[in-house]
């Protein structure tokens, strides 16, 4: 137990905010949506996330865990953003998913705590334009920077009985943005402008899910999540209550052979609930979002499936916060992944593991907004 506590402390002390990747499409609304998926899941484009105990999508997936497990995700993002003829490359590192959980010995219960990036508002915009001041056009150089986002703390429990696996989770949504605007004038008679603010968010939600294996080959799962409203405060004053989405989806896994699994999932998030509130704030509103993925996992050794498997998959998603009102942002990605397991004991249990994923994504929206990115994921798994 001491080792478990120590691991939890180490993970909690890890640097950086828990957020998904940064993107120019994370500037609007509440930011760029996170995927709440482990690196193991990302390798197959998220196709098996409904059955992955290290992901935070389906609470019932916790029953898949055979031992107490802690997993930690590092995501390195190299991207190129383009708006019309303007382009800029960027890079950043995030820690989008931490999960700790496992079965309660002697029972059919499993518990888990996870911390995921719900949305990411890390961005920095640079622009040069002309602004009329005192009746004269003046060239200005603007930088708008934001760090932060919304995080999702989930406390979940799952139970297995009669072939069914059911689970439920309580979500605490919290987060903040530290935002800064800097403006420098080409005419030095004007003093530079620097303004800072902190936008904080708070909310709560509930999720429930189930999965069941039908025979040796087919496994089916589903989930539903209801989030309430996020309170949005600027510095110390309340500025808005933004409804968070109703989410539901399903996934399936087909084990074609002991060494080959094929999976897919569909997830729908009704972000349009936030549309009115975001528009009332002067924003571009919100649209419903879908996330579809399909993938394959090919294992070398069916008895040690997580050691050096080959995972790959493809994914299509729409993003909830349009750059221009009503113009949907689309994302397509293909991914590849594998993993290593270490420190196997006499019972054949691996006590440590590293999973790797490489994903190439293309994002775009009308108006000349394009973005490509390489996402490199590293997942560290420890079983004390």
């Amino acid at each position, binding site marked *: 137990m001491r080792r478990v506590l120590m691991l939890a402390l180490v993970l909690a002390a890890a640097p950086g905010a828990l957020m998904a990747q*940064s993107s*120019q499409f994370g*500037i609007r*609304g509440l930011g760029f949506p996170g995927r709440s998926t482990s690196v193991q899941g990302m390798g197959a484009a998220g196709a098996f996330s409904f059955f992955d105990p290290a992901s935070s999508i389906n609470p019932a997936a916790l029953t898949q865990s055979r031992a107490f497990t802690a997993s930690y995700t*590092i995501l*390195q993002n190299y991207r190129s*953003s*383009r*708006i019309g003829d*303007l*382009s*800029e490359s*960027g*890079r*950043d*590192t995030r820690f989008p998913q931490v999960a700790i959980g496992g079965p309660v010995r002697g029972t059919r219960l499993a518990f888990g705590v996870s911390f995921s990036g719900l949305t990411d508002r*890390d*961005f*920095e*915009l*640079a*622009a040069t*334009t002309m*602004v009329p*001041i005192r009746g004269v056009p003046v060239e*200005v150089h*603007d*930088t*708008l*920077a934001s760090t932060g986002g919304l995080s999702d703390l989930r406390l979940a429990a799952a139970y297995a009985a009669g072939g069914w696996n059911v689970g439920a989770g309580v979500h605490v949504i919290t987060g903040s*943005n530290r935002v800064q*605007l800097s*403006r420098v*004038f080409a005419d030095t*008679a*004007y*003093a*530079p*402008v*620097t*303004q800072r*603010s902190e*936008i904080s968010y708070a909310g709560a939600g509930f999720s429930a899910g189930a999965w069941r294996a039908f025979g040796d080959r087919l496994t089916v799962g589903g989930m539903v999540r209801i989030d309430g409203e996020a309170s949005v405060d*600027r510095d110390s004053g309340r500025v*808005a209550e933004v409804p968070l989405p109703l989410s539901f989806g399903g996934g399936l896994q087909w084990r074609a052979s002991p060494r080959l699994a094929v999976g897919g999932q569909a997830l729908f998030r009704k972000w349009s609930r936030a549309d009115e509130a975001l528009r009332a*704030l*002067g*924003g*571009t509103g919100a649209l419903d979002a879908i996330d579809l993925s399909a993938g394959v996992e090919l294992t070398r050794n069916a008895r040690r499936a997580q050691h*050096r498997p080959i995972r790959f998959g493809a994914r299509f998603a729409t993003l909830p916060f349009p*750059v*221009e009102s009503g113009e949907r942002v689309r994302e397509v990605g293909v991914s590849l992944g594998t993993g*290593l397991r270490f420190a196997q004991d006499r019972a054949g249990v691996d006590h440590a593991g*590293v999973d*790797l994923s490489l994903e190439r994504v293309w994002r775009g929206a009308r*108006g*000349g*907004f394009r973005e490509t990115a390489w996402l*490199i994921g*590293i997942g560290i798994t420890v079983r004390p």
Partner: protein
Amino acid sequence: MRGPALGFLLAISLGACQEKLTSPGGCPELCPSDNLVIEDVVLDALLDSTFTGFLGAGEGSRLLLANGLGGEELISVVRFARRSDSITVRDTARVFEIDSVLLTVNVEGRDPAATGLAVEVYRLPATVAVDAGTTYDQVAAELLPERLLRTVPVPDDLTSGALRVVFTGAELGAIAFAPEDDNVLRLAYRLVAPAPTGLLLASSAAGATGPGFITFTRVALADTTVRQPLPRIVQFQTSLDATPAGTPSPDLLTVGGAPSSRAILRFALPPRIRDSAEIIRATLQLVPVAPFTGMPGDSALLDTRGVFSDLGAKSPRISSSDALIVKQRLVPGSSDTLFVEVTPIVRLWATDPAPPSALFLALDPEAASFTLAQFGSSRTPEARPTLRITYALPYPFEVQ
């Protein structure tokens, strides 16, 4: 396999040390400019007034000479400290012989176009006290040919530097003291030139370059002769105007002159700006009611500062940083509206605690220039001083 995996981890970790988040901000979709509102407002001065008497003539860093410049006749007078009859050599006070006497003045400014200038150095009698009560007429009456010690030409190419007069041998009689002089030398300097112009001389307030009076002494001892200079400091100096300016008009804002005048302008900063806006530019607009007087080549500056507290004429000026002292050159003869950028000062008015929203105007150098500026005040509607403030409102960070 462990090695490559660890290498990959290390590479990723190193890459993670740097972040670069910048994306292009395309306008108008992702352009911050659209949401940052910039406005400006023009404020009229309130309760503005002129105060006179900060530095008197001769208390500044320069003495003024003029022969009709701007219709003014100015002469300067100097009284040196008493010269003793003896000097101390080898711990003994000894009577000295005078070897020579050196009189100096330093030119600090002139009209570069004026030629043929010369400075007449007169010795004033003891009947002219050379103190604060001395008048132009008293001195002018003593500027007689027999009191003229020397006329010192000012080379046409001299813009700054020393003018020296040396008395030796028989010439020493002209500078010898009579009993009624009490060993005190009193001098008057007058400018002569073929055309009206002016000349600026360093005063003792400028330091070592002020008027000089040095007696080079000689003391004969048994086995040697000791030579020793005996300098005398300036005890009083002033510039005297044949037609002194009267009290400045209460309806105008006057800056400069001697005794020097300063002006204070107060503004009511709107609460909207004080509480939540960020001031990005503030321009003080002053409208001269007459061309600035002065001499070409006399570089006087309008010195604008904030005040720590508003105590009228005695308001302590904020001088804690060069950035908070705004100086702008006044061009003699110009009557163009003056635009003074006072952004650093006005930004202080929106801080907490904020100094009074007032500007104190003075001339630099004070009481040491021919320049005099007169601006319209809040009581002259056609030439009212104003402050134009441009400010940015809070950026709506929550709007995206």
